[in-house]
């Protein structure tokens, strides 16, 4: 059994692993035909490579430092754009991570907007204020609405009542919180306010949840109410503690 062209080429080019090279060289020692093929292959290659040198032109004068300088000077447009995007997301990420940062709400709103979900209607100006020191928002609930208090607040509470209206309303003393609304979601940034939030939920709303830091403290599902706190005079007073 003679060597195949792959073995001959690889032997000449030093591309055989040691064990295979040993086997091929042992074969060559005993096989004149394969030795001739190997020699012919080498001579043919040398002759062709010599012919290829007829195509050569002088080398350009280029050094690594020059090219490195070019690489730094002429960063392409896409490179600058990529750097800008990375910088933007770096700053945004840092802002997002800050405690109490409104960026989280903006991000959530943006994501939900991109997802094309039906947006809730937010009309803070239309919330009837009981006195000048109260602020709030109103939103039309869809099939499943969530009021999300961002942080637990041992001094704070939510006073929930069922209303005959069509909108979920949340009121708080001015400056106690900021509100961010998205599709089926109202984020209440309430860090350390110690305030009592007045929440009105339409009786006809299919499903409304109240959550604190991700944990559910109240659920209205149809006519069913789920709460750890008993109703008092048709109100539920819920501590803003993580369940």
């Amino acid at each position, binding site marked *: 059994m003679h060597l195949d062209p792959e073995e001959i080429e690889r032997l000449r080019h030093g591309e055989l692993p040691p064990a295979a090279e040993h086997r091929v060289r042992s074969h060559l020692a005993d096989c004149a035909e394969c030795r001739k093929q190997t020699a012919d292959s080498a001579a043919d290659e040398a002759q062709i490579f010599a012919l290829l040198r007829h195509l050569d032109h002088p080398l*350009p004068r280029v*050094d690594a430092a020059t090219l490195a300088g070019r690489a730094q000077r002429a960063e392409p447009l896409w490179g600058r754009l990529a750097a800008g995007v990375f910088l933007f997301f770096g700053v945004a990420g840092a802002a997002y991570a800050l405690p109490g940062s409104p960026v989280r709400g903006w991000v959530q709103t943006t994501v939900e907007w991109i997802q094309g979900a039906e947006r809730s209607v937010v009309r803070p100006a239309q919330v009837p204020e009981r006195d000048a020191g109260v602020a709030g928002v109103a939103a039309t609930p869809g099939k499943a609405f969530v009021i999300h208090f961002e942080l637990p607040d041992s001094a704070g509470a939510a006073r929930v009542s069922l209303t005959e209206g069509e909108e979920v309303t949340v009121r708080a003393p001015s400056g106690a919180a900021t509100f961010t609304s998205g599709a089926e979601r109202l984020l209440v940034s309430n860090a350390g306010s110690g305030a009592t939030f007045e929440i009105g939920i339409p009786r006809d709303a299919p499903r409304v949840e109240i959550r604190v830091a991700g944990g559910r403290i109240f659920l209205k599902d149809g006519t069913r109410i789920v709460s750890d706190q008993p109703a008092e005079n048709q109100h539920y007073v819920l501590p803003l503690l993580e369940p």
Partner: protein
Amino acid sequence: MFEAHFTRLYRYLDRLSGDPELASDIAQEAFVRLFRRGSMPDTPQAWLVSVAMNLFRNARSSRSRRGRLLTAARSEGVLSDPAPSPDHFAASEESSRRVRAAIDRLAERERRLLLLRAEGYSYRDIATALDLKEASVGTLLARARAAFRECYEDTDAP
């Protein structure tokens, strides 16, 4: 290190294109991109060849006519440097023409295989750059040489 890598890439592109100016531009741009990359690829030689080939493909159509003109002009300049005799000039010119004709008649893959190996690229680099199975590079090289030999002998001898 840089000079060795640059030289073999430039030589490969120069022989492939017949346009030294284009070859120089592309080889330099490939290294600029390597510098910008910030980290070394797994197979830097193959990476450089692949980048250069993409640049070459993009440039070839737009610069093909200009390339032919520059090649003709540069060919005279190179040969005139050592002040050759008229006979030597004519012989070199004829040899270049025959080799160029043979190279140009090869299939694209055979041409690249042969030129890459002529510059000493490893089987692994060749396989990566040309998207071949490394195990068959030797066989394909032998075929490429045979094809070149046939094309070269078919071209008109002086």
